[in-house]
């Protein structure tokens, strides 16, 4: 398996360049975070991979085969998109049954089991589901479809904290039982940071970061302690963000740190992915 390879993909909408010569590879059996600000080009990229949009130039291959208008390669993918593409008059049960017709590995029993766990009434029509339950309905299909590549575009839209937690747990369980490639595009970076193996950050249609989460987070750290102590410690360092709560200050810094130089009373923790994301994607 070669994974999903994106070669020099460019896509524009009128005067706006949504993707500019993007090159990426999503390897098999890994969990990717596709991050970017609103309008950065994340959904466009996912839509091009899944044939919903055509690239102006460049090519997407899936396991070595060109994916454009290819039923075989598209059968290896499932995109749970923010936009609902299921007929609104269809019930959840009907949608599950039809999905089984299209994806032979779709696990109907598992889907019904998940529906029970999420308390989704599968007899309801899709149009009558709330925003949160529409996301749940799509999550259930995405987790049950059993394709080698599952793409999630804003999967937790409208979900409460309990359901979000449940989704992350189920995703990890599913991945542990039967590894697959998951590409998750979301704005809730803090919540998924621990799930991700690789992080890709898009800014203005271009790839800004493409590396393993571990390597990315090793580029800096968070420093916590008394305000005066932290201020003194970070004075000569590159600070990308700081929070103050009561007498405590937490600063996020970039660059390596010699732990022997850290004074007592200062605690060093891993870099905060969200803070790094904000720093990297802030328009200067």
């Amino acid at each position: 398996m070669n994974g999903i390879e994106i070669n020099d993909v460019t896509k524009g909408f009128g005067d706006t360049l949504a993707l500019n010569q993007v090159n990426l590879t999503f390897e098999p059996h890994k969990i990717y975070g596709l991050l970017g600000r609103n309008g950065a080009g994340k959904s466009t990229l996912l839509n091009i991979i899944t044939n919903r949009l055509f690239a102006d130039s460049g090519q997407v291959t899936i396991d070595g085969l060109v994916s454009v208008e290819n039923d075989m390669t598209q059968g290896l993918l499932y995109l749970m998109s923010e936009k609902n593409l299921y007929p609104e008059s269809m019930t959840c049960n009907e949608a599950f049954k039809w999905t089984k017709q299209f994806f032979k590995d779709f696990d109907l029993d598992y889907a019904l089991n998940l529906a029970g766990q999420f308390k989704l009434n599968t007899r309801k029509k899709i149009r009558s589901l709330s925003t949160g339950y529409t996301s749940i309905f799509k999550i259930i299909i995405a987790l049950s479809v059993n394709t080698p590549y599952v793409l999630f575009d804003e999967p937790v839209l409208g979900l409460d904290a309990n359901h979000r937690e449940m989704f992350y747990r189920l995703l990890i369980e599913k991945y542990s039982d039967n590894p697959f490639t998951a590409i998750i595009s979301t704005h809730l970076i803090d919540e998924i940071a621990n799930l991700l193996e690789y992080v890709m950050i898009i800014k203005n249609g271009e790839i800004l970061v493409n590396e393993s989460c571990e390597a990315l987070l090793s580029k800096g750290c968070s420093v916590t302690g008394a305000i005066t102590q932290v201020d003194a410690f970070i004075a000569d360092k590159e600070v990308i963000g700081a929070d103050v709560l009561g007498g405590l200050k937490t600063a996020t810094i970039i660059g390596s740190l010699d732990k022997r130089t850290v004074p007592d009373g200062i605690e060093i923790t891993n870099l905060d992915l969200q803070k790094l994301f904000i720093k990297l994607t802030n328009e200067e």
Partner: protein
Amino acid sequence: MKLHAIYKYQLADHRNAVLIFCAVILAVMALVPMQITFSSDILTTNQSSQIAGLDMAPAVFLFVCGLNAFKENFLFALQNGISRKSLFVNRIYVAVTLAVTMALFSLLLLALGKLIDSPSSGIAYSSLLSMIYQSTGTIQFSGLSEYLISFLFLTVLFIAAQALGYFITVALYRMDKKQKISYIVGFYIIVFVVLPLIDMFISGQISTILLKFLDMAMGVSAHNPFIGMFSLLIFSMIATGSTWVLIRKIGIKN
């Protein structure tokens, strides 16, 4: 498996509408003799009730089916990894299946019509085929040939009706809101205002040309339904080809 599924899905999308439509038409067919039986006026005055061109109704119905067959199916196909080509090819299979089914249903209506068609019953039934090609009385359709020609003619007519409906809906999907309004309003203004006005000023020359063209294309004066079938087939191919040109690069809209 997936290709079979998209065929089944598109066909299932029409199932309920087709069943309701057939039930309504059969009910209409059943109501006419009942109404005549219970209507003393008709019996005493020796008037007859005419059922004519009932098989035009499926053509209109299938045109509407074609109009409603794109957006939802297209989005659903994309969600399930079906290419535009497979969706389109299977749409053609579905259109042929529906056309054949409705043509057979129309033959059933023809058979029922012939059963109730008699001077004593006060009902005169004429099929679309006989209305178009037998109006001058120089040609007679009867027996098995009538059923066979009717079946072929109606099948092609129904395919053409769906092809037109599908083309219109795909073309409208491609347009943005402003274009849609411009095209729809423009179409109505040209067809129902501008052309009739010009036609009036030039002594009906436009309508005469159009009627002559239709007459020639459908083989009405020649009393030859095969000319009509050929023209409808050409029309279907042009509409279907144009639809493919529109579909092949179509994307989802926000």
